[in-house]
């Protein structure tokens, strides 16, 4: 931001950003490293907001749950373009969005991932979306029994659990960044009428 034109452009951007957020009913947005502290701060802020708005307790718990799993997905699985080794990026980086409409909350995340992971992710998300409640419970039990914690501390249960708790489909999209990386956008809904 050096030079007058850049400043004016930036200030105008702020207004259009504000309008876009309002149009999409965005309650919380963040871009950056997703650390444990960030996860705690966002969930407790959202909890306090829902509490003061007297949101249904069951909705509150589900939103909290989905937020934690989504933020941990970024924290554990997001890639950083150009990073040579894992140790260079301890916590993953991405975008996190919480929006609130009259009927639903939406939790949306976006992060970079290696292109060669796209087929596996697509297959996993599609297979979860085909299952009903009972099917999800069965898959969850099977996974937790077989599963081991990965070296990143994930149990591989996050998406199944999100689908099970929300009863909503897992919406996703992959956008190509270059030959090596894609951008993964994930979104799910929590009904406010439980």
């Amino acid at each position, binding site marked *: 931001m050096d030079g007058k034109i850049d400043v004016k452009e930036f200030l105008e951007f702020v207004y259009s950003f504000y309008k876009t957020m309002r149009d999409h009913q965005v309650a919380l947005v963040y871009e950056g490293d997703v650390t444990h502290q960030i996860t705690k701060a966002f969930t407790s802020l959202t909890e306090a907001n829902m509490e003061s708005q007297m949101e249904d*307790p*069951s909705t509150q*718990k589900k939103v909290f749950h989905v937020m934690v799993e989504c933020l941990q997905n970024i924290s554990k699985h997001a890639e950083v373009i150009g990073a040579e080794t894992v140790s260079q990026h301890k916590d993953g980086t991405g975008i996190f969005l919480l929006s609130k409409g009259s009927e639903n909350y939406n939790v949306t995340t976006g992060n970079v991932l290696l292109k060669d992971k796209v087929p596996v992710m697509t297959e996993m998300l599609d297979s979860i979306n085909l299952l009903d409640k009972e099917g999800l*419970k069965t898959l969850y039990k099977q996974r937790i029994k077989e599963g081991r914690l990965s070296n990143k*501390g994930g149990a591989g249960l996050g998406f199944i659990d999100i689908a099970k708790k929300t009863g909503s489909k897992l919406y996703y999209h992959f956008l190509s960044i270059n030959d090596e990386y894609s951008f993964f956008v994930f979104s799910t809904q929590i009904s406010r009428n439980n």
Partner: protein
Amino acid sequence: MEVIKIIGTDDTPSVTLDANNDLFEISGRSLPEDVAAFYEPILDWLDRYAEGPNDKTVFNFKLVYFNTASSKLLLDILLKLEEIFEAGNDVLIRWHFPDDDEDMEEAGEEYADIVEVPFEQVSYSMD
């Protein structure tokens, strides 16, 4: 045996493991930054306890929230209790859930399906 007494925080549960006083309980919230490190001493304690358990072990779970990473470690605790039960000792799991929390009730049902150990669901009121 030594006593484990951990005071809970907003992201780690309270834990009491006290064989002499028959107190075995995990309660509160579980989403530790490093789940494996948090649960390791608890699992180690249970390994030692399994070598000479009390005649009856009533283990209380009274969690209000746990993330999926914790769910795997909770299963590991239940599997240790299953071992103690299968070795011929009396073991009872009491899974407490807030009476308006279907998801926590369901989590108990799922664990009860997975482990072969006497399992009791107990609802309580948050008021």
